[in-house]
């Protein structure tokens, strides 16, 4: 039987090795951490990953470019649309095409709602981990609203695969506007509710202030990105620094923290939800009329009405589905600001309809690699809080 064994030599005779996970409620999946303890103090924490490795990158090599999109859903399964977007933008860069303005607005709107959904899962489960159990129910209750909207547009609550190379899978449905308007009406006061429950909560403050601290320099050196890096005070957000999908059109702020502890990461995430709502509002008002997918014969599917009437369109439709399209030889790296940090796709093309190599740069993978730096020298109980604060999704780490 193939096993993931990991033997560790204790530093001294007084230390004790404790296994945390892979089955543990606070490890958010199948993360295993081998912790070396001196009394209750953590001397060294070594994460062991790979329990959820499904070979997504290998599978991508045997699929056509469009067939890869559903695989990206299964990586970060609480922020599917962000993964779809990252991959589609990378392929669009490779093909040198651009999606029409309508698709760009809808993409921005939906990925910002995905950010809120992802942060809700984080705030709910993290609060549950460290003793504020009611928060979990509130966060998941509001997340349902977002999942309902995703179901409305794509037919799926979680594995959406709604974005296509060059635009969207289909036009936005009737009732989309009213649903988004309801979300942007409901959410501001709900976020205030969360804050009134947590921000001045004594238990919350004691468990988060001054815990899991990392300095600016260390964070950059370790490759941390996303809210965890902004919590240290580095104002770096790819939506602002290297705008994609028309983010330069929208007005929003990048919230940052100062001390780099768990509390600052929490504040960053809560404020990011507010900023996302701002973007959602602007995007909904600005959705232009027009095509929802670029018209690139051979790459994107022709409009359905044409397929029913024109022979040429029918042939293109058939050929594009069956053969896929050949991308030019070359390689691109494109990254987006996913709810967890920098999500990058590095695609190598050899000119065939299938990608030669797709490498995903998962933000959680890199963020988790700094775990030892965050927890060593602290108490074991802080470890649960720190793992939670990184916001890991093992589907993305192990791929």
């Amino acid at each position, binding site marked *: *039987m193939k096993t993931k064994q990991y033997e560790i030599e204790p530093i001294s005779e007084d230390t004790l090795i404790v296994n945390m996970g892979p089955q543990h409620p606070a490890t958010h999946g199948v993360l295993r951490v081998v912790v070396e303890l001196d009394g209750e103090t953590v001397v060294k924490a070594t994460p062991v990953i790979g329990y959820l490795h499904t070979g997504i990158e*290998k599978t991508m090599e045997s699929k056509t470019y469009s067939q890869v999109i559903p695989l990206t859903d299964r990586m970060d399964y609480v922020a599917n649309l962000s993964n779809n977007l990252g991959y589609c933008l990378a392929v669009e860069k*490779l093909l*040198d095409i651009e999606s029409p303005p309508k698709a760009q607005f809808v993409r921005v709107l939906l990925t910002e709602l995905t950010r809120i959904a992802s942060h809700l899962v984080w705030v709910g489960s993290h609060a549950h981990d460290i003793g504020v159990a009611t928060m979990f129910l509130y966060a998941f209750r509001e997340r349902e609203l977002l999942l309902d909207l995703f179901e409305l547009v794509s037919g799926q609550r979680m594995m959406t695969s709604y974005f296509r190379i060059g635009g969207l899978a289909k036009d936005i449905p009737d009732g989309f506007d009213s649903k988004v308007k309801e979300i942007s009406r409901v959410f501001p006061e709900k976020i205030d509710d969360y804050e009134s429950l947590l921000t001045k909560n004594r238990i919350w403050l004691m468990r988060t202030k001054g815990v899991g601290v990392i300095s600016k320099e260390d964070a950059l050196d370790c*490759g941390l990105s996303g809210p965890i890096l902004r919590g240290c005070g*580095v104002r770096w957000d790819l939506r602002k620094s290297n705008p994609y999908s028309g983010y330069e059109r929208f007005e929003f702020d990048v919230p940052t923290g100062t001390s780099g502890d768990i509390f600052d990461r929490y504040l960053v995430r809560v404020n990011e939800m507010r900023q996302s709502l701002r973007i959602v509002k602007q995007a909904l008002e600005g959705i232009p009329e027009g095509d929802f997918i670029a018209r690139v014969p051979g790459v994107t599917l022709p409009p359905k009405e044409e397929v029913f009437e024109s022979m040429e369109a029918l042939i293109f439709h058939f050929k594009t589905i069956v053969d896929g399209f050949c991308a030019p030889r070359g390689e691109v790296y494109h990254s987006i600001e996913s709810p967890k940090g920098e999500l990058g796709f*590095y695609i*190598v093309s050899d000119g065939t309809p299938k990608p030669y190599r797709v*490498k995903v740069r998962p933000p959680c993978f890199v963020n988790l690699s700094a775990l030892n730096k965050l927890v060593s020298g602290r108490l074991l109980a802080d470890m649960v809080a720190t793992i939670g604060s990184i916001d890991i999704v093992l589907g993305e780490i192990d791929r």
Partner: protein
Amino acid sequence: MDSVTLKKLKEKFSDLILEVIEFRGELTFIIKKEDLIKVCQFLKSDPELKYNFLSDVCGVDFPQKEKRFEVVYNLYSVPNRWRVRLKVRVREGESVPSATSVWSAANWMEREVYDMFGVKFDNHPDLRRILMPDDWIGHPLRKDFPLTKEEITFGYNKDEKPEILE
């Protein structure tokens, strides 16, 4: 793409750069593996460039080439918002110097390259498999790794005689 990086690197390391590729506004330098750390150090510490963020390290396998593995470093400069890509090409069995001394982020990324391609990294603090089981044979992302073979997860225990019910 930025011309400053191109100019600076060409000035400083004109003899070390094997090839420069520009594609879709992205800049790729192919360098010798011996010079990797020197170039990385320069890119990170130069006051104008400041490539202080290692986005990604990844491997690509070209089994038909003599130097079959490419190890790719995607760098980002947070102050300048620039990206650049470095590449080294190695034969099978050859090792690459580890970039962990320049960015500690390289630790797990290089472990993944080792796990998936079998490229070894010199002076790496902790070069073990990361995603695959410790006793796994082979490196799954190599192009010649058999796709149809299925690993036996639970085998019949041959040391013990099967129990016969009468």
